[in-house]
């Protein structure tokens, strides 16, 4: 029913989509995947009619809905056919309350008031947000906002739903809620869905077909299990499947688990529970670089943190997990010194960071905020680096050197806004590290990074820890935590609900377990561990 025929899209200097053909059938869920910055959002924009109207560039080929070309039809005239939900729904909300937001699209279509009332009620029930109907949109949690955003386009009864990274900002549980809602739409209403997502492990199990967009703008479309055999991006479960030589590849944890008997016998016992800390990279344990005792931080009457205890040890990476709004950011900013402790103590390098002057704070901790772009304000990367050197009174070239190590090959004359997500993050990290803080705090650094990008970031953080820094990473990404962290702290409602070495914490809570753990059981965290174990067993057995 919906087709892209031979679509080519280019900006003046580069080709984004190269002769793309894609057909989406009635009631089908198609997953669009590909490395960062390859043009997934552009493809979705073409479908919705927003590209090239809002981006410039030239588009050739044809977009066909039910046999009629809609290439010349602007997005607003496609609104009753295609429902488009972009990244970052809060930026898209037009009205204040949930009900009005759901009705906005229908008002534009000119539906009768009774129809609107009925559809609003149906949609509220369908998405399970009936109790939020009068709430202010800004007070909703991330998962709720995402569901309202989906609902706001569903009310016009579109035939095709286009979702751009619907779960990238959500904690694992909220992401599952949203995806369950989407699958329900596909099953119950027969809506077709085209969804772009970085974290394949979340969506692949639900996808009917996979559309892989590669460098150069070429697509490959087909059965997910078939395509993922050699795709450049692969969720851990697929990597595990490739390693074990399973064919067809398992896409769900359940499928994989049923085939593990043979693999388990080859693997033997799980690795040493404390390999990283005592390993060659970990220095001898010293006293903690940062210490938090019984910390209570309150904005207004409701405390954002209650009785939190935390030690950050030099040479280790600590993962900080928890729902949206569980107090992760508050904890980071308390360590940085912006938030005062209502009760309890925060000590970084022996000092209370809140009492320090800003310059001294920067020498104690480096914090990379959720949107690294907030830090950047100059025209070129080189200027940003030079300004960072001056501020930190560091030797000229310190920041540029750090950047070259973290993300080699960035053009110093480029504009910071033109960098990819990963490069921009690297620039922000370099800037805060120029002051040489022994403690590094990162808030959601993996947003918008693909698997290779996350691997690279994990490597960088491990290196920084190996130099004797204490690193604290707040993130929703369980796979990333499994890769990078030695310890995990899980917050809920501002309280620490579990903390300790990754292996123990992850084994205790299914919501935060990475796929490898889910498949092979406690003790196994990462695919590279499995690979190492297989290699040793292969050496021993013959």
């Amino acid at each position: 029913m919906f087709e892209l025929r031979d679509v080519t899209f280019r900006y003046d200097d580069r080709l984004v989509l190269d002769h793309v053909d894609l057909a989406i059938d009635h009631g089908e869920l198609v997953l669009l995947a590909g490395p960062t910055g390859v043009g997934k959002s552009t493809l979705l924009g073409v479908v919705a009619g927003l590209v090239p109207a809002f981006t410039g560039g030239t588009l050739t080929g044809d977009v066909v809905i039910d046999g009629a070309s809609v290439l010349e039809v602007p997005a607003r005239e496609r609104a009753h056919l295609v429902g488009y939900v972009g990244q970052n729904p809060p930026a898209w909300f037009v009205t204040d309350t949930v009900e009005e937001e759901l009705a906005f699209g229908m008002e534009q279509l000119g539906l009768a008031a009774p129809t609107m009332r009925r559809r609003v009620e149906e949609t509220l029930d369908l998405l399970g947000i009936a109790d939020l109907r009068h709430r202010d949109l800004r007070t909703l949690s991330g998962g709720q906002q995402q569901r309202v955003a989906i609902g706001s386009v569903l009310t016009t009864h579109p035939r095709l739903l286009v979702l751009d990274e619907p779960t990238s900002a959500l904690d694992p549980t909220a992401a599952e809620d949203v995806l369950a809602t989407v699958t329900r739409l596909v099953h119950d209403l027969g809506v077709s869905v085209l969804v772009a997502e970085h974290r394949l492990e979340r969506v692949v199990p639900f996808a009917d077909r996979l559309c892989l967009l590669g460098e150069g703008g070429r697509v490959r479309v087909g059965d997910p299990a078939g395509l993922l055999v050699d795709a450049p991006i692969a969720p851990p479960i697929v990597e595990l499947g490739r390693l074990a030589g399973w064919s067809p590849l398992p896409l769900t944890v359940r499928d994989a688990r049923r085939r593990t008997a043979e693999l388990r016998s080859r693997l033997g016992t799980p690795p040493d529970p404390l390999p990283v800390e005592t390993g060659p990279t970990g220095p001898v344990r010293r006293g903690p670089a940062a210490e938090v005792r019984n910390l209570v931080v309150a904005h207004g009457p409701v405390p954002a943190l209650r009785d939190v205890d935390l030690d950050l040890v030099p040479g280790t990476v600590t993962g900080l997990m928890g729902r949206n709004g569980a107090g992760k950011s508050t904890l980071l900013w308390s360590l940085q010194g912006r938030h005062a402790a209502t009760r309890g103590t925060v000590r970084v390098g022996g000092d209370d960071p809140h009492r320090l002057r800003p310059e001294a704070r920067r020498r104690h901790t480096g914090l990379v905020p959720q949107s690294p772009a907030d830090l950047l304000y100059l025209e070129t990367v080189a200027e940003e680096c030079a300004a960072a050197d001056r501020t930190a009174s560091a030797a000229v070239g310190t920041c540029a050197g750090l950047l070259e190590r973290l993300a080699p090959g960035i053009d110093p004359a480029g504009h910071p806004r033109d960098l990819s997500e990963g490069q921009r993050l690297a620039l922000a990290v370099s800037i805060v590290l120029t002051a040489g803080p022994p403690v590094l705090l990162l808030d959601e650094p993996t947003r918008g990074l693909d698997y290779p990008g996350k691997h690279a970031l994990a490597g960088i953080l491990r290196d920084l820890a190996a130099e004797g820094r204490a690193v604290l990473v707040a993130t929703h990404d369980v796979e990333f935590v499994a890769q990078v962290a030695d310890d995990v702290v899980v917050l809920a409602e501002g309280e620490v609900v579990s903390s300790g070495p990754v292996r123990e914490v992850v084994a205790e809570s299914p919501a935060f377990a990475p796929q490898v753990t889910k498949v092979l059981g406690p003790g196994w965290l990462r695919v590279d561990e499995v690979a190492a174990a297989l290699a040793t067993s292969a050496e021993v057995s013959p």
Partner: protein
Amino acid sequence: MRLARDLHPVAWWCWAVGLAVGASCTTNPFLLGLLLVVATITVFACRGDQPWARSFRLYLWLGLIVLVVRVLFRLLVGGNDAGHVLVALPEIPLPDWAAGVSLLGPFSREELVAAVYEGLRLSTLLIAVGAANALANPKRLMRSLPPALYEIGTAMVVAITVIPQLADSARRVRAAQQLRGGDRGRVRGLRRLLVPILEDAFERSLSLAAGMDARGYGRSGTATVGQRRTTGALMILGLLGVGVGVYAFLDSTAPRVLAWPMLAVGVVAALAGFVTAGRRVERTRYRPERWQPIEFVVAGSGLAVGAALWAVLHWDPLVAHPGVLGVPALSLGALLGVLVGVVPVFVAPPPLTAQNRAAIAPEPTSEPSRVAV
């Protein structure tokens, strides 16, 4: 029992404008005080629990500030009146070209009283507007615009929404910039705040525009080219007519034939344009505001206050503008006229709040079981 609902925003604005007109007709402190009491009681009795409802306190403070500033100003430049001198301040001599103006000087009781009366009138006016703001969300008022103005209305609503977002983004960027330190100069410091905030704002507005477009905002209706041209022509003719008419009306040297006739033609053309534009608009409203009899009563009560005080100004100027020498006089008619403004407290339906919303809608879980029984 009166069902909880939101009154039509235009009704509240009519009521408030009536009060404001009334306030501008008098300087009698008793009448003004009574007006203030009427406005305050009505706001506290009838406002909902939305954020804008709390803005009334702000207007009260603003009113107080206006009053104080007014008195201080009079203290500064008033002062050579005869009367009961309260504070004998030295007069600062001014050069000849400022003749007629005096700085400081003796401050008399009569002057104080006059300043308070005038200040009170101004603050009452302000507070009446504040009452309307607290009782009827300005966004809802804009949504009641005629269909032809729908798009402008939506744009203005969005513009209002942007302000809190800008404040959020400013807070975030300030905190983030603390993390790297550096230039603290006035210009450079401002630049490092403004660049990320503006970039953020531009990105946001572009994505909002894309989002609104994707959701059908600005769909052209089924109007033919001819209809669109007629509408456009009528609108332009209307604008021209009103423009020329107002100019000729204000400029007494312009030929009279341009004044009233042009104004009339312009208004008629503009109205016709509105109607044809509104007819081709295919938009509808979710939960449209309904104008019910109660709305007439509320709007009428406010307008009655205005009319009553205007009548007092005309027939009983001593009550409307009492002298500063004695205790201001009052008349029963004037008092009753002002008291009409409190009628909404008794007739207006209770506002929608989280509490009575919960009372209206029972728990969804209990519903099916009752059906089953």
